[in-house]
């Protein structure tokens, strides 16, 4: 019994930590897809870019971990602006095929560029002392870094909730996700909103990418390898829904972890079966607009 409880707690904890990572990276994708209707398969490339910016900052410029994490998010958010302005914007009205192809093209270019400058191997960083080893949370001893990841995830949830529910910009974004034409007609500058949201989403992805270095490792194939997971979170959660992305990340993170723990031979089977099941029943995702 004690063994069982121990297993359950560790599955839950690791699942939630993994889920937070998925959430932080995917939520930006969900909002941009909901708002702009753009199937941006290059979202993972911005996460990857965040990881590499962070590695460069820490190793080349000696920036400390936490500051590097924040800076990576800001830098990538700025880098993403011209992409939205000059590339993505041209295809908002195109079909999803064109959007998929354009963004996959960008992923290839990003992968090649990163490989050229950083080489094909995994890069890693050394996290500060307080994030190494274990911490005692009172109800158990847990890996410190994962605890930190969960904390960041929860802070992001609260911040996002506040930003979307309690600020003017958030209200505008919600209005535009709901009905773009209506939003435009009541005088919301949708173009500007798009840039802000896109940059914000990319910045979040970069933050997630920076956090992921220690857990998933960072290599030039990151953008493509984890793309499927990000897309799954978005599709299962429902486009444009923060709550949806959160719940989907939790469900998938915990199921994936439980599957690996309880039935290692089954491999990645679970996560896809669950995804298909949910989408068959709710094609718009758990919290998507019907």
């Amino acid at each position, binding site marked *: 019994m004690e063994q069982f409880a121990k297993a359950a707690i560790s599955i839950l904890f690791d699942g939630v930590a993994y889920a937070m990572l998925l959430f932080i990276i995917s939520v930006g994708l969900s909002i941009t*897809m909901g708002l702009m209707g753009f199937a941006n398969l290059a979202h993972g490339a911005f996460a990857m870019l965040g990881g590499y910016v962070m590695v460069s900052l820490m190793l080349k410029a000696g920036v400390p971990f936490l500051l590097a994490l924040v800076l990576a998010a800001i830098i990538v958010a700025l880098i993403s602006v011209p992409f939205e302005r000059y590339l993505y914007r041209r295809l908002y009205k195109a079909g999803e095929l064109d959007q998929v*192809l*354009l963004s996959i*093209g*960008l992923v*290839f*270019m*990003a*992968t090649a560029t990163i490989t050229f400058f950083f080489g094909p191997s995994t890069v890693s960083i050394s996290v500060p002392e307080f994030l190494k080893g274990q911490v005692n949370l009172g109800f158990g001893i847990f890996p410190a870094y994962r605890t930190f990841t969960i904390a960041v995830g929860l802070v992001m949830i609260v911040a996002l909730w506040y930003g979307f529910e309690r600020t003017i910009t958030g209200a505008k974004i919600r209005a535009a996700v709901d009905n773009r034409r209506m939003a435009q007609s009541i005088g919301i500058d949708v173009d500007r909103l798009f840039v802000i949201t896109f940059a914000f989403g990319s910045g979040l992805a970069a933050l997630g990418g920076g956090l992921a270095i220690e857990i998933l490792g960072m290599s030039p194939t990151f953008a493509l390898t984890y793309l499927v997971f990000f897309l799954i979170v978005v599709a299962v959660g429902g*486009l444009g829904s923060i709550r949806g992305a959160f719940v989907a990340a939790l469900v998938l993170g915990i199921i994936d972890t439980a599957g690996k723990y309880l039935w290692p031979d089954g491999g990645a089977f679970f996560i896809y079966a669950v995804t298909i099941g949910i989408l068959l029943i709710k094609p718009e995702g758990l919290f998507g607009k019907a």
Partner: protein
Amino acid sequence: MTDTPSDSGFTPDARLYFRAREGWRWAEALPWIVAIAAFFVFPDYMALGTQILIAIIFALSLDLILGYAGIVTLGHAAYFGAGAYATGMLSAHLGWGEPISAMLFGGLVGAALGFLSGWVLLRYHGLTLLMLTLATAILLMEGANAAEYWTGGFDGLVGISIWPLFNHFEYDLWGHTYYWYALAVLFCCFLVARRIVHSSFGRSLVGIKGNVNRMHAIGTPVHGKLVKIYTISAGMAGIAGGLFAESNAYVTLDVMSFARSGTVLIMLVLGGTGRLYGAFLGTVVYLVLEDELAKLSPEFWEFGIGLLLVVVVLFMRGGMLGALDDLVAWARGKGKP
């Protein structure tokens, strides 16, 4: 191409127009001449040539659903892989290595799988369909990985032994036999595809792609038609997979990978969708460029193909063949400025 519209008086002959569109043009002989000439000009490249021909069949199968029926999928490798495993297992486990029947068996399995999954999946569209096709293909790959006893799992399926073609033409290291074999299969598949897209059924697929609301409103059983073409397409993909298994005598999980689904999509779009020959041009350009450029530097190749995709999406909406059309139209002074 068209006559100036006029309100009355002159009535263009629609029959001539349709017949001209369906009829064979001289230019259509070109790819086949090139394929035959390639054998004599580059006899050492036939292993690559065979792989190109197989990839063309696969891309052609995708064109049927993407180019004509507008079904966007990220999981078409599922059917290619199913065909490859079916053909491979037929030989490795049951000892049947007759190439043509084994390949057709691969096609049959692909079609059966296409029918079953299409029946469920084609009720969805847009991003949901994209994710469902993607997840289905990955799920199938995981299944193949788990069914190690049958598929060899990650090690790959070994022990495939294919008998000589017509009991006479042995598989050779230079790929000569298989080049002709694959070319013949491609030609048959192409004839079938051409026939289908120019049939009444093919026209109604174009209608579904053009405006599905309208097709519903004129009483088209849209779902049934989509399942039909999806099944045919999956069967053709299965044939390509079977051919792949025979020519390689080895099948790995890679045949069902996301990368393969993505690559075939890219090849087709590069060439141009909805025109059958796009599959030819796109595949040849992609694989030859890959073969040559990747030797220079893999990163260079990866960056190049990425850039090419971006350029095609932004500036060449009909792929290379579409650009060619525009160019011809422009040269004739009829094109848009």
